[in-house]
């Protein structure tokens, strides 16, 4: 197998570390579904099928320096940047210690100031203009940062996305728009959402580059991100990256995808699963073994077990805090 990572400046350790984040994302997500089916978790949206894209993208960002406005599916992004399974589970179970919101906001609406993670509300796409605003602020201050903002292909049909992109283009702002195209917006397939093949084709209309990458391949996404980051830091403005992925689970724990996706289609994409493919790559270039994989799984599952135990035992929000945080204190 050809070594594709060295040319991207990734050594073998980095490669293994990327794989570790991908596997952690998958195993944690699987555990969240178990907790949901046990009735312990009320609601969840899943990252399965998007891990390669998310870890590859976040790998190109500097934790605590660059800004992130991830969307609800971005579990792999926030774990790569430095949030922990415990942080995720505390939010999922709406505990007082939840670092995102103290149990106030829905799970997967990430928010963690120490790592410059900021996101907004449930109406989709509203974070895109925020990204432009954060980047504008950085430009005014002369800060050397980039802003990552992500969304699904369905969300690209929102006015906010268009306006945010145009704003960033006009002011040549250091924003990287990552569209995670999993071909469906809940039940609505891509051909009913847009008349073009690629969301990235629209970048031409704003006046910045749009690139399409295989989102099941973390190295391809990382490579595209690196280029976009460099362009942004040179002051040349935004890039739109469209990563083609596939959601391997229903849209959310409230959804039944059997009504709109043929099982064969889902099975076909499972065979192209990014996590399994990346493991094969690691083994192919001789940095990974089946034994190492089993060992890593054991370690990650133990970490997840401990996080679940901690989060379940953690306290609920205090009723006396009910009216706090509506205004600045």
């Amino acid at each position, binding site marked *: 197998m050809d070594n594709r990572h060295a040319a991207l400046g990734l050594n073998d350790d980095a490669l293994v570390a990327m794989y570790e984040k991908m596997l952690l994302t998958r195993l944690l997500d699987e555990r969240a579904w178990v907790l949901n089916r046990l009735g312990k978790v009320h*609601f969840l949206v899943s990252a399965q099928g998007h891990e390669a894209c998310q870890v590859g993208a976040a790998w190109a960002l500097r934790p605590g320096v660059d800004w992130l406005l991830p969307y609800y599916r971005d579990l792999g992004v926030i774990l790569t940047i430095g949030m922990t399974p415990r942080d995720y589970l505390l939010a999922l179970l*709406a505990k007082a210690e939840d670092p995102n919101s103290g*149990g106030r*906001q829905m799970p997967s609406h990430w928010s963690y100031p120490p790592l410059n993670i900021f996101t907004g*509300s*449930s109406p989709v796409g509203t974070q895109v203009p925020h990204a432009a605003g954060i980047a504008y602020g950085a430009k005014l201050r002369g800060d050397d940062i980039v802003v990552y903002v992500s969304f699904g292909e369905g969300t690209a049909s929102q006015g906010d996305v268009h306006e945010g992109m145009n704003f960033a283009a006009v002011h040549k702002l250091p924003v990287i728009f990552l569209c995670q195209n999993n071909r469906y917006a809940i039940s609505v397939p891509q051909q009913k*959402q*847009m008349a073009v093949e690629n969301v990235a084709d629209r970048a031409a209309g704003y006046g910045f580059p749009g690139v399409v990458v295989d989102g099941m391949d973390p190295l391809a996404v990382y490579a595209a991100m690196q280029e976009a980051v460099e362009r942004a830091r040179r002051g040349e403005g935004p890039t739109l990256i469209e990563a083609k992925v596939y959601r391997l689970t229903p849209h959310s724990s409230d959804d039944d995808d059997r009504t709109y996706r043929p099982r064969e289609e889902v099975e076909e994409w499972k065979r192209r699963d990014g996590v399994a493919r990346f493991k094969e790559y690691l083994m192919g270039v001789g940095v990974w073994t089946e034994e190492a994989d089993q060992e890593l799984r054991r370690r990650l599952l133990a970490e997840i077990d401990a996080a679940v135990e901690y989060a379940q035992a953690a306290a609920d929000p205090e009723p006396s*805090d*009910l009216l706090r945080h509506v205004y600045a204190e």
Partner: protein
Amino acid sequence: MADITYREALRQALREEMLRDERVFLLGEDIGAYGGSYAVTKGLLEEFGEKRVKDTPISETAIIGAAVGAAMDGLRPVAEIMTINFTLVAIDQVINNAAKIHYMFGGQFRCPLVIRTVGGGRRLAATHSQNLEVLFAHIPGLKVVAPATPYDAKGLLKAAIRDDDPVVFIEHSLLYSTRGPVPDEDYVVPIGVSDIKRRGRDVTIVAYSRMTREALIAAEELAKQGIEAEVVDLRTLRPLDMGPVLDSVARTNRAVVVGEDWRSFGIGAEVAARIQEEAFDELDAPVLRVSQLEVPTPYAANLEKLAFPGSRQIVEACQQVLNIQVGAPVAAG
């Protein structure tokens, strides 16, 4: 007469109106093969085809804006907006367009569209479970409907589709599976007519949508204490039919207004103001309001429960208006 769910009643209304009038068509997110997020449009794509049941991109402005255009063009669009929270990204099309087109052009264009949407989420947090009916009820040119029972849901949706003005039709996420009797034959419930859902001589409870059910539960509880509450269901918020409310207050002399919205500037504020303007002499106590606490809806179940009103708060407010006299200080309930 069959006992059916609120969801089924709405589906029947859509289906019967689509059969009756071929100008009626549906558009919205996930309404086709998926049958809608709350499964109201299930089976309609199969029966009426893609021309009349349109899955749209996630573009609320285009959904409502296109419905406005189609309505001006003589069609009868019924737009589904997945939840009331998502109408906000398209609010200009509702307030500056749908509501005003008939007036601004001197009556030359009609805008007969229905925006079906869903209020009252649970465990979906601040931007996913709001009760924003008052935003629409504030606007001249809109009609706003918020039914509580399957009977009213079906009859009012039919009336809304036949109406020549824009109607915001607000369903409630927690009512879809509730059941009630619905006649087999065609009927409409006129827009702008309140309805007495329970007779009682001691106190008037004014409510709408899901809070009507909570008011009826509260009334049963009060009956055990020897208090007979009358429950008036507004059904339509705009135009507001105060007749049954004022009649009731003339008999009970006390009123509690219940909404799941926030208290300040809410539906309760309007109803209470109208009662004191039009029936001041009938009142033996100040009108009290029961509503959501003034906080965005929290996600955590324990906090959420504290934020929303229910039958317990209604019982307490009724006890309070029965124990106070005009002139005595009132602690807000």
